[in-house]
C-alpha cells in the first residue's frame, strides 16, 4: 500500500472542506472496499479523511418515512426493528451480501460507493477504462461471465456489485449529500449512472460531496417481499443475478409491484415495465412469467454471460413466487 496522510473529521463541513482542498483525497468509512483497492494498487489516495466518527449513524422514523444515516453499519441496518418491520426486503438484501464480519464494518454510504468487482478493474496490469480512462476494456473481449446485460457501453460492461442498493432502488429511496455548496437530494435511481463514455464515474456524486444518508418513503407495509440472489456458492459470493420484489396483493390481485435487479447493469436495474404489467393482475405464475419476459427484453449479452438472460428470467419468476407465496 502506498503511504498516505490520515486525518479524522469530527464535523461534516470540515470533512467536505478537507476533501475539496486536495486533489487526491478520499473519505474512508468501513474501509472494506477502499483498503482492498489500495492494497491492489487500484486506489492510490494521498490522504484519507476518516469519517467514521461523524454523527451519521441513526436509523430513525421521520414524518415521511425512515432515515438511515450514511455511517450506519450494514449489520445494524439489517437487524434494525424499524427496517425489519417496514422494509424487510432491505434486511434480506443486506444479509445476502458479504459476511457478518464485513457487514459489521461496512457502512451504508460505503456500500453505495463500492466499486465494481470486474477482475480487469482489480488487476492493474490489465486494460480498464474505469480504472485508467482510455486504456481499453479488458472484459469486452475477455472473460465477461459476471458482466452486464443491460445499459452497458462500448467502453465498459461492468456491473455494480451491491445487494443493498438493489433493495433501495426498489424502495424508491432518496439520497442526501452535503457538498461545498450545501445539501442536495436526489432519487436513489439517479445516484448511480450508466457507463457511457465515462465509466470512470460510477455515480453522480460531485467532488467533495459527502453522503449524509438515505430516506425510504413510507409505503403500505407488506410481507409479500423477496430478495433472491443467485451466485456461484450458497454464501459469501457476489450475485450473478439478484432480484428484489415488493408486492401489495389484495384479494389475489396485485395492487402495486416494485422490482429491481442486481448483477445485470452498471447500476441497480429497476424493472418499471415489468412492474406495470403486473398491476391489476392476479398473482399467478403465468403473469409472473410474462413480467419476466418483459423485463428481459433488450438484454445484450457477451461471450460468456449469455446464461444471464435465462437465469434473470427464472430469478424474477422465482422471486415473485416467493414474494406472493405462490407455489
Amino acid at each position, binding site marked *: 500500500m502506498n503511504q498516505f496522510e490520515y486525518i479524522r*473529521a469530527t*464535523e461534516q463541513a470540515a470533512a467536505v472542506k478537507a476533501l475539496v482542498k486536495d486533489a487526491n483525497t478520499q473519505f474512508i468509512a468501513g474501509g472494506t472496499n477502499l483498503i*482492498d483497492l489500495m492494497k491492489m494498487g487500484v486506489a492510490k489516495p*494521498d490522504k484519507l479523511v476518516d469519517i467514521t466518527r461523524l454523527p451519521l449513524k441513526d436509523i430513525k422514523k421521520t414524518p415521511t418515512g425512515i432515515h438511515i444515516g450514511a455511517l450506519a453499519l450494514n449489520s445494524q441496518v439489517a437487524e434494525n426493528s424499524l427496517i425489519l418491520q417496514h422494509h424487510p426486503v432491505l434486511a434480506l438484501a443486506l444479509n445476502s451480501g458479504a459476511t*457478518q*464480519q464485513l457487514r459489521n464494518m461496512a457502512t451504508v454510504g460505503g456500500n453505495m460507493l463500492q466499486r465494481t468487482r470486474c477482475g480487469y478493474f482489480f488487476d492493474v496490469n490489465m486494460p480498464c477504462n474505469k480504472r485508467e480512462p482510455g486504456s481499453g476494456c479488458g472484459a469486452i473481449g475477455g472473460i465477461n461471465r459476471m458482466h452486464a446485460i443491460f445499459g452497458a457501453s462500448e467502453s465498459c460492461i461492468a456491473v455494480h456489485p451491491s445487494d443493498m442498493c438493489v433493495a433501495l432502488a426498489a424502495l424508491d429511496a432518496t439520497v442526501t449529500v452535503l457538498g461545498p455548496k450545501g445539501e442536495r437530494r436526489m432519487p436513489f435511481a439517479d445516484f448511480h449512472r450508466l457507463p457511457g463514455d465515462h465509466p470512470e464515474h460510477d455515480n453522480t456524486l460531485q467532488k467533495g460531496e459527502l453522503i449524509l444518508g438515505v430516506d425510504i418513503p413510507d409505503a403500505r407495509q407488506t410481507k409479500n417481499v423477496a430478495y433472491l440472489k443467485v451466485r456461484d456458492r450458497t*454464501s459469501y459470493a457476489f450475485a450473478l443475478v439478484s432480484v428484489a420484489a415488493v408486492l401489495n396483493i389484495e384479494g389475489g390481485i396485485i395492487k402495486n409491484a416494485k422490482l429491481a435487479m442486481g448483477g445485470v447493469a452498471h447500476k441497480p436495474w429497476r424493472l418499471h415495465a415489468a412492474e406495470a404489467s403486473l398491476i391489476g393482475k392476479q398473482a399467478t405464475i403465468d403473469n409472473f412469467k410474462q413480467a419476466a419476459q418483459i423485463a428481459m427484453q433488450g438484454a445484450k449479452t457477451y461471450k460468456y454471460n449469455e446464461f444471464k438472460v435465462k437465469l434473470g428470467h427464472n430469478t424474477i419468476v422465482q422471486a415473485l413466487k416467493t414474494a406472493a407465496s405462490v407455489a
Partner: protein
Amino acid sequence: MASKKPDNATVSDELLNGTRRDFLKQSSVLTAITLAPTGLVKAAESGLDEKIAAVFEKIPVSLTVNGVKHDVSVEPRVTLLDLLREQLHLTGTKKGCDRGQCGACTVHVDGKRVNSCLSLAVMHDGHHITTIEGLANGDELHPLQEAFIKHDGFQCGYCTPGQIMSGVACIREGHANTESNIREYMSGNICRCGAYPNIVKAIYEVSKGGQKV
C-alpha cells in the same frame, strides 16, 4: 473476487520460513526508531481532529487489547492485523488472504467481529479489541475452544483462531440457533482443510448448552 496471489501466499511463507516472524519483529523495532515522530501534530483545523500525520509520520494510537491498554504509534497504512501481529506480537490472529476473503484475521472490536486485515489501526483509537489470546480465562479455555478440541474442529489449525473468534460472536449474536444458521453466519471463515462439519458441531453444541460465552 479476482486475486492475483493465491490466497495461501502468506500462509506458506510463514510456515516454510520460520525466521520470517523474527525478521519482522526486528525490522519493526528498527523502523520505530528511525521513523520516530518529529513534528507530528499539526495545527488543528476546526472540525478536524488534531491527529494529522504527514506521509512517513507515525500517529499515536491508544487502544485496549485483551484488557491491556497500549499506547503505540503507527503509520496510517498499518492495518489492525499488522499492528496486532508485528507490533504487539499477538500472532494468534492469522493473515490468510489479507483482503477480507477468508476470515483468518477475525477479531472483536468493541464486541463486534470484524476482519482486521481490512481495517486501519489508526482508526481504532480508543477501541477495545479482543483476539484469540484474550479468550481463555487464565488456564481455563473458553467453552468454544474446548468444543473445538472435543469435536476435532481443525486440522492444520491455521483458520482456527478466526473460526473461534467468529464462532463466539456468532453465538453471542444469536445466530447459532440452528446448524443452517451457523453455516450461513460462519461463511466468512474459510477452512482449506474442510473441517466445516466439526466446526459447525462445536459451535452448535456450545450454543445449545446455553452457558455464557
